[in-house]
């Protein structure tokens, strides 16, 4: 089966400024691909290219195997929700949502039904008569989403739709969106800079940094096997602990002056300068006085269902650990603990390029 959407070596420059470089991506029908990256990395530009309101400098965009180069935005059958909503200020919510239906020359009755269907889905049936400026931010966001969904487009482009709404609504929508998107049966490209949103929604995540994809993979794989130190840093809360070090001959890591044995497979990298990373949840407390690294608990903070500890080793290095709040092992602040690293949460990266050299695998 051909891919529904295919980007082949797409690049975009504005004058001398390269915004996107060599972007290749495929998406199957019905798949939800999240484009994830910090702001200013060209995510929005990518969606605009696909929607056809900007043209790529080089490269090819195909939908259903057809080259989109000469296809105007109105003929691409995409729906798009803008980060700033981009509602038509002189039309009420109903007409905003109706616009894709009217453009498809549907009769009044069909338009009415279509709008009613999405409005009900998004719980905005009661504000359809309002002008955009009379809507709350949450209602605006839902109207924008409804407009994108109204014509059941085959391809749905969502540009950080939860960015400009308050925290409560964002939380609700994060729960609701997966169901909505599955119901729409569209292929979805979803842009966000919130890693939790990306993890919750994506079939696959494409991580964008400095205009390039650094990794395209399932959420699980992105988290377990980040392709670069940058990706590792972007996913996870609290963020991954990183330390610059070298690998010993036996594969052990020199961490804060202590030899830490993690995984024998690292022996192959002996002598190499690396960045060592360990996920906070892989930092474990041990009761065994003979093993592990001595550390002092500097602070204890609850975060969601987990508790985050700020630890300082005897040599002064700081690192974060995260334990389930229900755990009996949570030490008090100021107390001394011994820690070990669970190999499954450890990573090695090349110190110069940041590319991954491998993950710990032994449990």
């Amino acid at each position, binding site marked *: 089966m051909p891919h529904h959407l295919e980007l082949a070596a797409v690049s975009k420059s504005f004058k001398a400024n390269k915004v996107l470089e060599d972007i290749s991506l495929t998406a199957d029908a019905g798949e939800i691909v999240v484009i994830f990256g910090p702001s200013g990395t060209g995510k929005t530009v990518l969606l605009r290219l696909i929607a*056809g309101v900007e043209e790529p400098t080089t490269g090819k965009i195909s939908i259903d195997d057809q080259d989109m180069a000469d296809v105007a935005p109105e003929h691409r059958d995409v729906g798009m929700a803008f980060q700033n909503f981009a509602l038509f200020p002189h039309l009420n919510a109903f007409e905003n949502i109706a616009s894709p239906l009217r453009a498809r020359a549907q009769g009044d009755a069909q338009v009415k039904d279509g709008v009613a269907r999405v409005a009900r889905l998004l719980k905005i049936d009661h504000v359809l008569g309002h002008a955009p400026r009379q809507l709350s931010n949450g209602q605006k966001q839902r109207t924008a989403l409804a407009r994108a969904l109204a014509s059941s487009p085959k391809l749905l482009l969502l540009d950080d739709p939860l960015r400009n709404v308050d925290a409560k609504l964002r939380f609700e929508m994060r729960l609701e969106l997966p169901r909505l998107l599955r119901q729409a049966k569209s292929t979805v490209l979803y842009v966000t800079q919130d890693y939790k949103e990306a993890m919750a929604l994506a079939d696959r995540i494409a991580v964008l940094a400095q205009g390039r994809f650094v990794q395209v993979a399932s959420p699980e794989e992105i988290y377990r096997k980040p392709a670069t130190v940058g990706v590792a840093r972007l996913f996870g809360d609290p963020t991954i602990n990183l330390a610059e070090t070298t690998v010993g001959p036996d594969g052990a890591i020199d961490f804060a002056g202590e030899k830490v044995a993690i995984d024998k497979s690292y022996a192959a990298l002996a002598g190499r300068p690396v960045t060592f990373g360990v996920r906070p949840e892989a930092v474990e407390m041990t009761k065994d006085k003979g093993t592990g690294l001595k550390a002092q608990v500097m602070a204890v903070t609850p975060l969601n269902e987990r508790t985050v500890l700020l630890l300082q080793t005897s040599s002064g290095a700081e690192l974060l650990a995260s334990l389930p709040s229900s755990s009996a092992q949570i030490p008090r602040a100021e107390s001394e603990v011994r820690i070990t690293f669970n190999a499954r949460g450890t990573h090695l990266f090349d110190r110069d390029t940041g590319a991954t050299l491998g993950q710990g695998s032994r449990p």
Partner: protein
Amino acid sequence: MDHTSTFERIVRGILIGLVLVFFLFPIFWIVLMSFQTNETILRIPPSIVFEPTLSNYSALITGRLETTAGNLDIAFMKNLGNSVFLSVASVLVSLALGIPAAYAFARFRFRLGEDIAFTLLSFRFAPPLLVLLPLSLYFKQLGLTNTYIGLIWVYQLICLPLILWIVRGYFEDISPDIEHAYRIAGNSWWQTFRKIAVPLAMPGIAAAGLLAFIFAWNNFIFALILASADKQPVTVGALAFVTASGIQYGQIAAAIVLSIAPTLALALYAQRYLVEGLSLGAVKG
């Protein structure tokens, strides 16, 4: 500055009063004159108490001036009609030419566009005769002298820069995403322009159109050079009328009142946009 002294408030009041008198008295006085007969106008000392008469206006409107010396035809209503036609047509033409161009300059920001916009702007400040005198010779060859078409064409010199630069500002203020959204929803470029861009820029279009009308109406030099009596607007016609009617001061005043009334009324109606229009879109009121 809320604690102004009573003294200061009185001084301010007097000063504003003087300013208002200076700027409004001439209009007031001409209106008074237009309702007087020549006898009351020539009375010394002048007085604001008199028996008002509509004879000046009726003479203008019927186009017959009956004097002791005989009857005189007045073409003034024709001039008024010319002013209306020339101004309305010029504004409509410049809206038709200017709105699409303003949109192109605002949205696409291309070299040629900037060149056109700035050339038109810079000729807004060039001496009009520089263009008009050679044009009058060309018009003779082309047979455009003393035609409405020729005049409307020349009026673009004042109307078009105004429309272009004010409306352009309004188009620039519309978020491109709003237009993108409408395109993506399935509408062509043309539909988007008509249903989104133009309605959203409407305040600017209205302001620019009203101002262009006022400037076209008030223009003097174009018609002075390119039109003869039958195509002349009131600004030129009134001058000729003064020469022709000699001492019929009441009628002259009435003609002036009729000539300035439309722009003054429009100005009061459109005052909200005047600041922006007068500064070609540089200052918002």
